[in-house]
């Protein structure tokens, strides 16, 4: 059964206020005020000097579980919110893998689930290892992207993207953080980056994400009452409060600490929030928890995973 062996994260120290980001994007003062006062957004993490490679290096530097185990890594999966993040055929992910002793691994990108691609990659990684019967092998899921263009800076009416990265080491079996179930709902009917699609996404967001979480939890043979904590994607507090109301789940048990401090870190949010929950002692041995993510723009996806710690 797929298990998380370790998680390394990196969020650069640089911060930009949402007023500045809103100015870059041509948002009105009122729009920015709504983001700050209503959605409770504040600062966005950015690394003004580094590229994608530097983000991923930061996450790998924090992945202690990888040290000495590099030779066991069979696959490296970069989970993408945006399918194309560097000029073709530049491949900074491969360069980073070479530098970290992972040149022997099969390195590729998976995605087209928007910001839920990180959960897809985690499921795919464990499944690849298990299907090969490779119980000694490991897979590495990398997440994190640069806010290189307007589309990669703003989730219209919802959030701002920030820069950060995570590296998650995965095994086909293990006891530390075992994956129990995964649910995914793809909404290809929401397929453009225009305002209408953004509104459509917002209309279905709370109900669909709540249904996806419920589906993952039920498939794991659990009820929401069993779930100790939810590790969300960092869109905004209001959106999660709506999801909690729909689920009948206490909002205090959703790790929203990073929403106002970093922005929405593409596919890395759930992993960054894992480390936050770990630091706060919110992950208890034997207790189930949930990772959940959704993304929209040109193609919407809602995903959730149930784990036991």
């Amino acid at each position, binding site marked *: *059964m797929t298990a998380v062996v370790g998680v390394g994260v990196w969020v650069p120290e640089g911060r930009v206020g949402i007023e500045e980001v809103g100015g870059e994007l041509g948002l009105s003062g009122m729009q920015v005020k709504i983001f700050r006062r209503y959605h409770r957004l504040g600062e966005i993490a950015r690394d003004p000097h580094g590229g994608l490679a530097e983000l991923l290096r930061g996450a790998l530097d924090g992945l202690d579980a990888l040290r000495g185990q*590099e*030779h066991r890594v069979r*696959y490296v999966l*970069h989970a993408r919110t*945006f*399918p*194309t*993040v560097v*000029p*073709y*055929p*530049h*491949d900074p*992910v*491969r360069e980073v893998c*070479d530098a970290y*002793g992972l*040149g*022997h*691994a*099969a*390195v*590729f*990108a*998976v*995605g*087209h*689930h*928007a910001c839920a691609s990180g959960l897809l990659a985690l*499921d*795919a990684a464990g*499944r*690849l290892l*298990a*299907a*090969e019967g*490779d119980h000694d*092998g490991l897979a590495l899921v990398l997440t994190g992207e*640069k806010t*290189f*263009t*307007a*589309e990669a800076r703003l989730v219209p009416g919802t959030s701002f993207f920030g820069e950060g990265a995570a590296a998650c080491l995965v095994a086909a079996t293990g006891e530390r953080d075992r*994956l129990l*179930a*995964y*649910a*995914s*709902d*793809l909404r*290809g*009917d929401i*397929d453009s*980056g225009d305002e209408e699609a953004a509104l459509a996404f917002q209309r279905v967001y709370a109900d669909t994400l709540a249904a996806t979480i419920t589906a993952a939890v039920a498939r794991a043979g659990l009820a929401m009452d069993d779930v100790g904590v939810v590790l969300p994607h960092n869109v905004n507090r209001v959106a999660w409060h709506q999801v909690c109301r729909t689920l009948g789940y206490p909002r205090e048990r959703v790790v929203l600490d990073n929403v106002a401090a970093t922005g929405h870190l593409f596919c890395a949010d759930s992993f960054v929030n894992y480390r936050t929950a770990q630091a706060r002692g919110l992950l208890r041995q034997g207790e189930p928890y949930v990772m959940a993510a959704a*993304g929209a*723009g*040109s*193609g919407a*996806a809602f995903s959730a995973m149930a784990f036991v710690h």
Partner: protein
Amino acid sequence: MMRTFVPHAAADEAPAGWGVRRAARLDFPGPAALAADPVHTERLRVYLTDLLHPYGLALDEAALARGGQSYAEMGEALIALALPPGESVDLLVLAYAVPDIAPGRATTTRLSHVCPGAPMAFAVTDQAATAPFTALRLIRAYASAPAMSRALLLIAEQPSVPYDAHLPRTLPHTASAVAFVLGPDSPFPLTLPTAPPAPGRVGAVSPPAGGGAGGAMALSAPGEAGADTVRPALGGADAVGALIAAAPGPVTAILGPGLTPAAAPGAHRARTADPGRPTTGVWWELAAEVAAMRDAPAAAPPHLLVADRDAASGALSLAALTPALEAAVSGSQP
């Protein structure tokens, strides 16, 4: 459509006889309909300009104006061609190397919406010609999950990249895509052979720059991919030869553009892919083999061995199919 999964269990296996059921292929010589949309083109201009800026690269406006292809449009055409009325799939995987003209679009999510069965769908990329083989490994891995055994693999490429990245690249001569319908009880079971790791590579954590021992094999199997480990002049000939020798009958080798028939010693016949199809080439030829078998069934059809090598990394990937197919179709998009 909500889909739920539990992790792969030890006893899980792909269903008996899982393999290729049908193949389809299409060329797309003209630009996508999306390319004629000025709103999209302006959005693409901004996206690419910002993508290129950190690298000190500039957009080629003339190339942008010529348009390009959309994997969503190509995928929709292939879905219609590969899946007859009443047939559906549980999983759709798109493999590609060259980005299309919608670099920010979750194309497979769109394809899931239009594909019969509303399949789980995702993309595999940034692995050059190896990506379709990795996609097949993933599809096979998911096939062991309940209600996930029927899948559609789409392999696509298109030539419009409106900038010079100052790195070696091989773009296709035309846009093309190949589809394979996969499922249980296939008359054409599929395997993805692996080979022993290259000598001296297991346990290495700091591969030497520029390659390793000459003549060692580099397959795309986990832990054995030789991206920067081995770049033999005749990568994997021993492994391919061993597979051919082990086949119970004659073997037709379908070789990627970078391979010569010498890479498949003992093959009854070798078919080399068009260099103008760097990603889809071997799959284009495989679809043709499938069509030929349909049109002229043989008493003892050959086994098929697909081999392709990533020109940049030297990694060799393999797929083996046993004969007899349900059907195949091919054509050209007007």
